[in-house]
């Protein structure tokens, strides 16, 4: 039982991170109908920016100013993501209004490779570390209930808390502010939103900025766990099944989808793995998503599309 719970918790923590990346996809899809292939590249780009900025700030401040250096790194990387969002809108999206979804998808594919290259040109292509001072030592919970207790990775716990705070902040932003209302309006109907005075271009910049910040937080957490390296860009591929499961248009869907995939991966690896020779973790999510596509193509929480024939 203790082992089961341990696996479950491990899965939830990993799932939280998938949710973060998936959230980036959902935000942009909702507001502009674009499936943003570049979300993974944005995670890499943001993480690279943060790693190098905090490193440089650390050198400049000298020695033991870890928090301040990280803060400068975070704000600096946030600024960079703002510029990226603004440029993407200015140079690409603005000229592709009303184009086919495939065209936009191809555009984001181009942006993805461009960002990956640019990131490494600007910030270097080696492995960097982000040290935001997360404790690496594990703790034991409930050792009075189970023999030996449940082993929890403190780092995962912190990461989950950060992710939860971000999600809560985003939902306040979307539900309680007039800008959030405008974003939801644009997501539903571009033309109607413009007719009541909502400028589409500004909304797109805001959405890409928010997605940039989400990418930054995801990149920061993944980066501090695994180091900032090129493979971060492929994290986005791991989040694809999450958006299929949760629905491309649903914020809660991204979160719950992420948790389901995270838990599913870990549990299947531990309990089914031994029978098929292991390695389930790598493909489990995709098979689950494939199954979902057959049964419920709009995902758990997505909007069902009813077309009039």
């Amino acid at each position, binding site marked *: 039982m203790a082992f089961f719970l341990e696996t479950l918790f491990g899965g939830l923590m990993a799932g939280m991170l998938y949710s973060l990346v998936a959230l980036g996809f959902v935000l942009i899809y909702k507001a502009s109908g674009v499936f943003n292939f570049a979300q993974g590249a944005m995670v890499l780009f943001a993480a690279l920016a943060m790693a190098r900025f905090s490193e440089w700030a650390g050198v400049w401040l000298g020695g033991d100013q870890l928090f301040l250096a990280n803060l400068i790194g975070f704000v600096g990387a946030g600024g960079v993501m703002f510029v990226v969002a603004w440029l993407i809108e200015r140079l690409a999206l603005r000229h592709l209004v009303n184009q086919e979804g495939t065209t936009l998808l191809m555009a984001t594919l181009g942006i993805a490779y461009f960002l990956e290259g640019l990131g490494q040109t600007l910030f270097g292509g080696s492995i960097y570390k982000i040290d935001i001072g997360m404790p690496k030592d594990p703790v034991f919970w409930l050792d009075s209930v189970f023999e030996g207790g449940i082993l929890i990775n403190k780092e995962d716990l912190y990461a989950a808390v950060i992710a939860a705070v971000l999600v809560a902040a985003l939902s306040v932003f979307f539900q309680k502010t007039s800008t959030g209302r405008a974003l939801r309006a644009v997501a539903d109907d571009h033309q*109607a939103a413009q007719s009541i005075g909502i400028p589409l271009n500004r909304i797109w910049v805001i959405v890409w900025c928010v997605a940039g910040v989400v990418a930054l937080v995801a990149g920061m957490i993944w980066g501090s766990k695994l180091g900032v390296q090129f493979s971060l860009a492929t994290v986005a591929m791991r989040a694809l099944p999450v958006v299929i499961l949760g629905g491309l248009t649903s914020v809660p869907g991204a979160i719950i989808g992420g948790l389901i995939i995270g838990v599913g991966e870990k549990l299947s690896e531990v309990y089914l793995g031994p029978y098929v020779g292991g390695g389930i973790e790598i493909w489990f999510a995709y098979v689950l998503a494939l199954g979902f596509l057959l049964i419920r193509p709009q995902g758990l929480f997505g909007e069902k599309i009813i077309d009039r024939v």
Partner: protein
Amino acid sequence: MATKHIGDVILDVKNISLRFGGVKALTDISFNVREHEVRAIIGPNGAGKSSMLNCINGVYRPTEGAITFRGKTFSHMDSYQVASMGIGRTFQNLALFKGMSVIDNIMTGRNLKIKSNLFMQALRIGPAQREEEKHREFVEHIIDFLEIQAFRKTPVGQLPYGLQKRVDLGRALAMEPQLLLLDEPMAGMNVEEKQDMSRFVLDVNEEFGTTIVLIEHDMGVVMDISDRVVVLDYGKKIGDGTPDEVRTNEEVISAYLGTGH
């Protein structure tokens, strides 16, 4: 009925032409709209009525001509700029924000009026909170006016068609527009719904003094509620005047009924 005061020209459309490739949607259309009046644009299907409205609203860019609104002349503006000048509109094919409730849909119409910034709103700091309440109150007033109190929390996608049309009107009203463009407000409605809608249009005009331009292809309804009527056919203006003048216009009659053989 009390005679209302019809003021000066506030919208002046001059020599508008609109072409899509080789197709002429509008050819040299001119007309004006006076303050506080109800102005109708009628014509058979495909006459160019919606194209005309979309030119005023900034959705289309006219190939030639200019539009003057309250002394400001423009050949093209983006829709959101037109909105910030005080021109609101409704849509022929419903364009509501389906995922949102009735009250949130109408609240989006207040977007341009909200002044407090994002962080104050998110943290619900005093002034932002008071402002939000003020806007809610205004929206509630519109909801009462349109008699949709019972549905204020319902997602609009679940409402019947006639009520969705009212929400569409409500959202435009929330902008407190000086000029309201209505794109076939009665299309697809039954007789009773049409009567309700006509009543709302007249009430808006009388109570708020809003100038209204409406498009309709059903001549019957329009003649009863408009002060002046423009008639389009195949993208050309074939008549302009009071309902009575238009009704007896030979060209209009033949456009609607076909020429005798």
